[in-house]
């Protein structure tokens, strides 16, 4: 493992820690009603903490991308371009299906987040395989 790869691994771990912290804080806010957080102030504070950790995650992601080498950046860019396109096109079509009552359930934002995650992961895997 060369110096560049070692640094990249360290930044990946930092990003993973921020992402895990953000997910935990998001889950905490999402399930606050089940945790009997009846105080609006407490829920607001938890939401603010989630937002601040989210900003930290964005900073870690920016730092991660910024320090990738040029091929790794290209793989990321290709995956992100595919993700953005698919999220907008499929997301809007899905929303229209809901608005026109063609699907029997509501089009939730979580479905879109799931689609984004899957598309991005597949895009990265295809890019890594292409330049192997």
């Amino acid at each position, binding site marked *: 493992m*060369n110096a*560049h*790869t070692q640094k990249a691994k360290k930044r990946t771990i930092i990003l993973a820690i921020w992402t895990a912290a953000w997910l935990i804080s998001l889950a905490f806010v999402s399930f606050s009603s089940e945790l009997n957080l009846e105080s609006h102030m407490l829920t607001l504070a938890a939401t603010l903490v989630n937002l601040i950790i989210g900003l930290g995650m964005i900073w870690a992601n920016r730092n991660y991308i910024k320090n990738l080498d040029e*091929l790794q950046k290209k793989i990321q860019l290709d995956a992100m371009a595919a993700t953005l396109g698919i999220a907008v096109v499929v997301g809007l079509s899905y929303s229209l299906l809901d608005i026109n009552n063609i699907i029997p359930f509501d089009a939730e934002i979580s479905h879109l987040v799931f689609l984004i995650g899957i598309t991005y992961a597949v895009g990265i895997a295809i890019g890594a395989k*292409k*330049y192997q």
Partner: protein
Amino acid sequence: MKNRIKVLRAEQNMTQADLANHVEVSRQTINAIEKGKFDPSLPLAFKIAKLFERTIEEIFIDESL
């Protein structure tokens, strides 16, 4: 774009990881460049050329010309 990196590397008994370390990229990037799957940027091409003490034209061959 074809290149002579593999040959130059072999002449200097250098592994892909050694070259990657010198020019501060991942080994996968060197591998993709060697196989002609990825064309390096001008700054990276200059770094590689400087390391092998060659000109860019001596290392990279533009097949469209």
